[in-house]
């Protein structure tokens, strides 16, 4: 394994690990606040139990997310010093704002977790709301920094350096809105349906548990609307890509030649005529640029990007359908807890959101290669000169594998398990 590949792999592992915790850190506080609010209204102890368990779960996941996020902020320089030299002055702004949002999240999570009998019920609920808001804000700021790497704006690039930089303009990169929207919805959909799915599975074994019923309902309340809206935000993202990052879109859709009336290719050999033109420009005859618009050495890994994209879309579609089904059942006032087929469908959806998030990040990161700043700086030119990068890569990977196993065990034992009744 050469040093560049080791550095890329270490970054990929660090991001893939962190993003799970980031996503749950954004959405879990919403669930916990909803449970607490219901408890304050109904005084049904099931909701207090839920709020407390979810808060404990958030505490574990937030702590691991906080430290794995620290790792990333250092890795930006440890692995990609040349990238940070160039980009720091421009994208430092969203990172600084993220720093403050993260600070607020940590402060109010401390108050939420340990302040149950130290602050008034209203202040306690408000602390939870602030955790949820600052969690969403910090996620959005980080995604904006990434969006800038995809569509860099706010500078003039002369002789290998940036001049006339405009950090605020850089935050207004055209990729910011589609990416932030897509990622935030993904966080709510993955976490909401993840929680609902786990409790759906437990309800299949224990259909009368009030605890699992309550958890499932709140999970659906957050996850189902987000899952249903997600294809719309995907459409916005695809139309942005067609205009700003045609090569990434071409790799996602395995479109080798520029053509009018472009089809969508699913897997090997299945084509839906005109679908890509329709999707990208809302016009069946529009010209979609293919991979042939750039030289061969500027192509991303088409097979991997295309596969990741199809996986993401398939999972997202399934989740949207489950979300619609949930909405339909709710409209007809059917009980979720006794509808075994729905519970099975929901249980299957539980891991889907997280897999889709990973696949989606593979699409956007691999799809930008060989660039780290699109059109400006190649990933190969940004890497640290330090040799032997396979060693830190291996160390971080082993560390995160171990942590992942421990977290999963701890959550299963402390949070999800049925209360003693």
């Amino acid at each position, binding site marked *: 394994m050469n040093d560049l590949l080791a550095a890329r792999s270490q970054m990929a592992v660090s991001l893939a690990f962190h993003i799970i915790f980031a996503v749950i850190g954004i959405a879990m506080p919403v669930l916990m606040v909803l449970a607490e609010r219901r408890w304050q209204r109904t005084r049904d102890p099931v909701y207090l139990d839920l709020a407390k368990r979810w808060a404990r779960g958030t505490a574990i996941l937030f702590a691991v997310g906080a430290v794995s996020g620290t790792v990333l902020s250092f890795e930006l320089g440890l692995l990609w010093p040349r990238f940070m030299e160039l980009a720091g002055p421009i994208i430092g702004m969203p*990172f600084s704002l993220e720093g403050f949002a993260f600070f607020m999240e940590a402060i109010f999570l401390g*108050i939420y977790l340990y302040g149950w009998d130290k602050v008034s019920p209203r202040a306690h609920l408000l602390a939870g709301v602030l955790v949820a808001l600052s969690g969403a804000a910090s996620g959005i700021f980080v995604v904006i920094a990434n969006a800038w790497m995809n569509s860099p704006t706010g500078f003039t690039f002369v002789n290998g350096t940036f001049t006339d930089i405009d950090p605020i303009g850089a935050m207004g990169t055209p990729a910011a809105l589609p990416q932030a929207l897509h990622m935030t919805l993904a966080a709510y959909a993955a976490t909401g349906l993840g929680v609902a799915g786990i409790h759906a599975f437990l309800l299949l074994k224990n259909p009368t548990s009030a605890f699992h019923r309550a958890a499932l309902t709140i999970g659906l309340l957050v996850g189902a609307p987000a899952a249903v809206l997600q294809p719309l935000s995907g459409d916005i993202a695809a139309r942005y890509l067609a205009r700003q990052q045609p090569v990434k879109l071409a790799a996602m859709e395995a479109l080798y030649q520029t053509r009018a009336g472009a089809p969508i290719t699913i897997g090997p050999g299945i084509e839906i005529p005109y679908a890509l033109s329709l999707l990208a420009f809302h016009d069946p005859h529009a010209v979609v640029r293919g991979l042939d618009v750039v030289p061969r050495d500027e192509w991303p890994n088409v097979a991997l990007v295309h596969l990741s994209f199809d996986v993401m879309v398939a999972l997202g579609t399934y989740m949207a359908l489950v979300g619609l089904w949930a909405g339909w059942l709710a409209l007809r006032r059917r009980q979720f807890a006794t509808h075994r087929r729905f519970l099975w469908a929901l249980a299957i959806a539980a891991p889907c959101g997280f897999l889709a998030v990973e696949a989606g990040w593979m699409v956007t990161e691999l799809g930008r290669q060989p660039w780290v700043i699109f059109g400006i700086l190649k990933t190969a030119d940004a890497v640290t000169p330090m040799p032997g990068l396979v060693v830190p890569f291996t160390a971080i990977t082993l560390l995160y594998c171990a942590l992942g196993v421990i977290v999963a065990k*701890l959550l299963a034992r402390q949070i999800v398990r049925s209360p003693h009744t």
Partner: protein
Amino acid sequence: MPSLADTLAGIILAALTAYVLLGGADFGGGVWDLLASGPRKARQRDLIAHAISPVWEANHVWLILAIVLLFTCFPLAFSSIAIALHVPLTLMLIGIVLRGSAFVFQSHGGGGGRVFATSSVITPLLLGTSVGAVASGAVDQSASGKWVGFYAGYIAPWLTTFDLAVGLFTLACFAFLAAVYLTLETKDAELQEDFRLRAITAGAAVAAMAVLGLVMFPEAPRVNQGIVALVAAAALAALWSLWRRRYNWARIAAAAQVSLIVWGWGLAQYPYLVPPNLKITDAASPRVTLELALIAVVAGAVVLFPSLYYLLRVFKAKS
């Protein structure tokens, strides 16, 4: 009137100081967890966990803030430090991950107390060693990128007696701060006495190391004589207050002592951000970035400080 770049360098040092005073004490708590002993061993550990739980994540964010401001405002300094100190910083990160996750696993019934305590010792050592390497001019920017061999380029610069001594000194300071703060975290007189003795021991160790360091490393960056005198005065005040069981005064004096040490380091290498070659002005981002960073810091502080005050008042008030 300090320049904009100097102001931001000062803010970064202030964030680092806050990290040392707050986050450092959390690491110090881990040190005393490792060294818990005597008939009240379990109670000591409980007190430490209880004191750290609500605040350690917020305390940890100071480090992230310092790093983010460093790469925003002084990207050249960030990249040269990250290249030259890749090894100790990566090890420190592993320590940070292990400390944080082991602590939270322990608080939620998952075990991991040993890992928490051990990584609380190793992480400050590596942080201090990295600071020592920066201060002693090991991060020579003119050398970065030149192939000089792995050991000569990436290990030897920070594996010096001076850098390791700074690492040990950092650990002692963190342990000292933690022991002093812990005297105020309990009403149990026996526990208070345990940590009073630990604070006095650690404070004496800090003082001895400081004196030894001044003698052993005459070539080290010159710390301003006035600051050395102030550090000595604060150290004496801290030890005196501990002796007389004036714990509130001890806390103030200890925090002042350690802050002065951090600022003594900063001023000793001024105007260099990364000695021996990189000055603050040379490493600085364009003016517009610095201005926006300053605005972001001020705006952030307006929401941050009241929240932080609230957090500390809720959990640290009755002491």
